[in-house]
């Protein structure tokens, strides 16, 4: 049984980390980061089997790939608080000479990152490659991937989605952050994607929903079910229904905070809604 109090404390602390990172450099993407905080916390602290020391090849452990690299603030915070690098390094987010680039990269050697992402639509393909390597290596561990929903407008995803089902890549769980928002507005206004569940199913994936995508227990239970579905010949898609900007009232239910940092006053307000739990970096 998961310690939900501890996980929840971590969620609140990660929210603070996200807000403080983007505020300091007046740039970055808080909306999607806040929307996926519970998913990241559950994944790294309850779901993935991880080795203590980071190695690029990740043999003998589950691997995670972030396709929508712009939500780097949540990724960095969760990695740091899982021990991949010192939490103090969150102070360097987006600064010159930092390992915490605007979008995640292997280029500066930050532990926990296995591929650069930021230019959208490439994560599922990379994940398939990693999943195929696991099979060749007779490594039973899984590949977890997170994609934005707007990101599915990139055509390469559908090449990858077709390939994974056609080739029984069944050690792969792709989660779609279904927040319905993208930079220019709601996904339905920018480019309607129709019934994503039906689309993934038509391509041959095993698809499930996690309706409460910002509820830790729903995520843990749902992702465990997804894990049980692996190894049965089909790749798994989890449609994670999230709220962009979750946990900060004025950032929720809007695309306005996709790529905008809070000012001093807004930061104070947002942090007051999320009091310190584990301690700020």
């Amino acid at each position, binding site marked *: 049984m998961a310690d939900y109090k501890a996980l929840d404390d971590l969620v609140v602390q990660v929210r603070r980390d996200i807000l403080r990172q983007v505020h300091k450099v007046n740039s970055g993407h808080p909306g999607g980061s806040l929307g996926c905080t519970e998913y990241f916390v559950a994944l790294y602290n309850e779901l993935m089997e991880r080795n203590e020391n980071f190695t690029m090849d990740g043999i003998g452990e589950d691997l995670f790939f972030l396709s929508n690299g712009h939500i780097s603030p949540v990724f960095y915070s969760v990695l740091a608080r899982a021990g991949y690098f010192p939490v103090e390094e969150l102070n360097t987010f987006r600064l010159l000479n930092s390992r915490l680039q605007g979008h995640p990269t292997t280029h500066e050697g930050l532990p926990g990152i296995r591929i650069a992402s930021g230019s959208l639509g490439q994560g599922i393909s990379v994940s398939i*490659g990693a999943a195929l390597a696991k099979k060749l290596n007779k490594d039973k561990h899984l590949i977890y991937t997170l994609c934005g929903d707007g990101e599915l407008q990139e055509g390469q995803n559908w090449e990858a989605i077709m390939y994974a089902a056609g080739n029984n890549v069944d050690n792969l769980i792709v989660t779609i952050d279904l927040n319905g928002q993208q930079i220019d507005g709601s996904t339905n206004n920018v480019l309607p994607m129709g019934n994503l569940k039906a689309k993934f199913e038509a391509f041959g994936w095993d698809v499930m929903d996690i309706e409460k995508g910002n509820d830790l227990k729903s995520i843990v239970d749902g992702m465990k079910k997804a894990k049980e579905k692996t190894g049965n010949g089909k790749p798994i898609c989890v449609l994670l229904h999230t709220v962009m900007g979750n946990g900060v009232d004025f950032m929720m239910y809007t695309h306005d905070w996709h790529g905008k940092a809070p000012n001093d006053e807004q930061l104070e307000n947002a942090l007051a809604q999320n009091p310190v739990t584990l301690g700020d970096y």
Partner: protein
Amino acid sequence: MKKYTDTGKKDTRSGFGDGLTELGKKNKNVVALCADLTGSLKMDEFKENHPERFFQIGIAEANMIGIAAGLTIGGKIPFTGTFANFSTGRVYDQIRQSVAYSGKNVKICASHAGLTLGEDGATHQILEDIGLMKMLPGMTVINTCDYNQTKAATIAIADYEGPVYLRFGRPKVANFTPADQNFQIGKAVQLQEGSDVTIIATGHLVWEALQAAETLNENGITADVINIHTIKPLDDEAILKSVKKTGYVVTAEEHNFLGGLGESVARLLSTKHPAPQEFIATQDTFGESGTPEQLMDKYGLNASAIVRAVEKVIARK
């Protein structure tokens, strides 16, 4: 003057296929990916020998590059195979982010480069790929000249850790480099010694450069002929040594003069040892349908064009 003999025309893509077959037997981490052109890329034998290590991706090159990048994370050495056009321009951003910037050990192997693809025409005849690839930080760019060299290069790049673009072609061409050559990435091969001009060639133009040197020799002009199989990193030392001796340069490639070998040589010489240079290359144009020979003639990419360029550059005294 050294004599080079064509031991029988062979296509460079078969050199790739045979090299890959050999690699498959000796290195179990080598995997191959193809985007519906297995026969054209001569990857059939690898596929037959190692079905578990061969991935038919379908007509989806962007996905192929991404999957290749992912395979490296589990310690594999992926060789992707498709036409040069679909290996580069079509998937530039995938290569840029998932391979080059991510520093992944992917070997992008590209056949049917340049005009000698022939009748399919300009949609398939890429003349910009060397430029595209050499601009990517950390990317090694190789363009081999014949069957033997392509086979040797294919085997050699598996032992090199890092992204590589290996460019070769479609038609059967003279096979004249040694079957047992030691292929060294980044190391130019001096084919002829002369004193009047340096001819620096890559790919299919290397054989043409040798033919040109023979003609020039008959006219009393002796040429250094340098085979640059690795355009990046460029063998600065070999080029400078030769040009300091001869004072004149002709570069020759089956590529646009913008972005190609000639431009790399010009950049080097302009900073280290300025010298008159002529460019045998396409002149900022697309190709068209025709036989390889007709096209190379029409676009001035053959021995007689090299001879004319040498005469022109020497006249710039």
